[in-house]
């Protein structure tokens, strides 16, 4: 056994002695190969005239001092606008279909003479959670991912990193982090995987730990609903534009927190020299739309969707069971919420909201349905047909605009979902960083909500 290794070590020593005499072996190797490449290219490649450099012309606009940033913001807005407004209609359609199917399922269970609890666990718990997740998540993702993939395949995203690198450098992070954040809008787990494009371990870890501050598809619907409710509670007359602006404000806050936390991490836990930044700006290429659609739908949309479905099903079952098993006249859910009430109140929320976030750990999109279910106490998740109905329900349960605001903030800043955490575990190969990835955002979320609640109450606004 040891024979080969000893032999190898001997050879290694010999080689190192030789190598050290020569000095920079690597330099010579690389230089020789590149010279050879240049030589061969000169022999085999001919340039027949000069083609117009379209890429350069595009880049003159895309990365210009004047147009660079506005264009980026405009594109981001267009992607969001298309995603949000384009998803509304198919979402409603899907919900109608899936919840219609639920009645059929109920009928089937009754026909088969199944016990109530079985119908409850499977249909009212599991199926409803699935129906909700699919109808809320699928349409926006089916729009967002192809759009994102289009920009990616086009070659635009590296330009974004080029434009924004200085900002990230100041925060001790890598310019490519912005791309992992863009991906995070679709799904934080996907965003965490995307962090592989960052070569240096330190900057990559920073990107992984902060990806959660970008609200993913599962949280976006919550943000939009809360923005509408907040505006509705604050002023009697508001338009959807101000609500959208509020959502945009929350996204900007998320980006600011990302930069701040990145900066703090790079000064404390992840101290170190910024590593090399080399970024290729590849030629622009118009993607083939057909294959782009197939790939983004199958590889990204359905992939992420399936993962959410797998965690939502058991979560729906557990939530139903907790809401329907009564101890001393109160459901377990209500008991748990009671214990959390004091804490929830201190951070401007209530016990049910905190519990919904905890039960929503498997997937962010089931937080609101669980919350509604607990308020209604009817023991199953429902979809309220309008935002007004939802507002009424919430106000009846003691909500103020502070609750809506803090719900948004908590949703933006709190711990990543279980899928994202598992992905972080896989990507970092470390339990320590996974735990930190949950603790850092949760700590920030609690602190921010607490401060906001105290200020608002201190000012006597409530």
């Amino acid at each position, binding site marked *: *056994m040891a024979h080969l290794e000893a032999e190898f070590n001997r050879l290694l020593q010999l080689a190192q002695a030789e190598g050290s005499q020569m000095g920079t072996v690597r330099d010579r190797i690389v230089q*020789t*190969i590149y010279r050879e490449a240049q030589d061969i290219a000169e022999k085999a490649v001919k340039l027949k005239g000069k083609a117009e450099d379209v890429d350069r012309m595009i880049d003159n606009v895309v990365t210009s001092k004047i147009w660079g940033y506005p264009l980026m913001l405009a594109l981001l807005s267009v992607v969001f606008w298309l995603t949000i407004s384009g998803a509304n209609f198919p979402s409603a359609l899907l919900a109608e279909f899936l919840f219609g199917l639920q009645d059929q399922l109920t009928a089937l269970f009754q026909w088969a003479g199944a016990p109530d609890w079985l119908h409850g666990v499977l249909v009212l718990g599991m199926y409803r959670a699935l129906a909700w997740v699919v109808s809320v998540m699928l349409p926006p993702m089916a729009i967002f991912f192809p759009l994102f993939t289009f920009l990616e395949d086009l070659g635009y995203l590296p330009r974004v990193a080029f434009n924004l690198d200085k900002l990230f450098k100041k925060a001790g992070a890598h310019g490519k982090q912005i791309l992992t954040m863009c991906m995070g809008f679709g799904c934080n787990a996907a965003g965490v995987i995307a962090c592989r494009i960052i070569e240096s371990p330190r900057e990559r870890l920073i990107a992984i730990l902060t990806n959660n501050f970008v609200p993913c598809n599962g949280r976006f619907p919550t943000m939009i609903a809360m923005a509408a409710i907040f505006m509705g509670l604050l002023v009697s007359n508001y338009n959807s534009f101000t609500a959208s602006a509020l959502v945009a404000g929350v996204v900007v806050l998320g980006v600011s927190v990302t930069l701040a936390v990145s900066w703090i991490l790079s000064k404390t836990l992840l101290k170190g020299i910024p590593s090399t930044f080399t970024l290729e700006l590849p030629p622009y*290429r118009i993607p083939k739309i057909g294959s782009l659609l197939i790939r983004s739908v199958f*590889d990204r949309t359905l992939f992420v969707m399936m993962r959410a479905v797998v965690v939502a099903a058991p979560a729906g079952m557990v939530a139903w069971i907790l809401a329907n098993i009564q101890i001393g006249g109160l459901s377990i859910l209500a008991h748990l919420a009671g214990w959390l009430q004091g804490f929830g109140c201190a951070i401007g929320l209530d016990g049910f909201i905190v519990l919904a976030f905890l039960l929503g750990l498997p997937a962010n999109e089931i937080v609101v349905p669980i919350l509604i279910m607990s308020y209604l106490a009817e023991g199953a998740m429902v979809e309220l047909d309008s935002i007004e109905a939802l507002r009424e329900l919430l106000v009846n349960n003691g909500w103020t605009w502070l609750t809506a605001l803090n719900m948004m903030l908590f949703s933006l800043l709190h711990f990543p979902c279980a899928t994202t955490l598992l992905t972080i575990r896989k990507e970092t190969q470390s339990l320590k960083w996974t735990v930190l990835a949950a603790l850092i955002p949760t700590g920030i979320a609690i602190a921010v909500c607490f401060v906001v609640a105290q200020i608002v109450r201190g000012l006597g606004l409530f």
Partner: protein
Amino acid sequence: MGLTAKSTGIYAFLEDLNQSSVKADAIIALAGNPNTGKSTVFNGLTGLNQHTGNWPGKTVVLAKGNYLYRHKNITLVDLPGTYSLLANSADEQVARDFICFGDPDATVVVADATCLERNLNLVLQVMEITPKTILCLNLIDEAKRKKIEIDIAALENILGIPVIPTAARDKTGLKELREAIHQTVFGKRCNHPKPMVYSENIEVAIEKIQAEVENLFQGRINSRWVALRLLDGDTTIIQEMRNYLQRMEPKDQPVSETYKEVECCGSFGSRV
């Protein structure tokens, strides 16, 4: 050193590869710089849906796919896009380890025809490891548009390996690529890749240790390349060589099939 090194990294992947339901007649590695349309070539050959992008170094997971050509089942392994096999990123290590220690039956390097000089860097590095290298000159349509003309015959002649121009987006040239792979693996075709000649002191140093390296690895890996890496003193590759030796030791197998074929080409060891 324990047994742990044996089933991690490349070896875990190889074991996984061997256990797949369809037994492959040949395993082909697909290497290339980022942004060369490598994944499009991969999809075009295998029909497997896999994401391609313009982002440098994005394909980090090793994807594999199969296709049938002339009754042979070919497994294609899509390596991460890299500029080189020398540097320190995880991507480059994965690509290098697979080409060097994974013992693929052939390695296809996808190059961007609009930017050949830069891409040749990787091609030449792969050619140093294995003579069974095929150059897939992708984006040839784009090169034409940019008024770049490439003399394929001359390139083939200089490099000493098959050069196949393709435009994978339009599936142009993929049939020829399949044929070239088939010929390289199953045919009589022998490549004679242009050897890299380094400065005299490096060549002298290589010569000093090459014979012993050849003995140590029983001719299973290219001894000239190993000698060069040892001189370079790259720690990651040295660790990988230790792992390789560890795996080699208990078995003492007869010299593998591939090695014999390679030997017929006379490209390992004896050539400078």
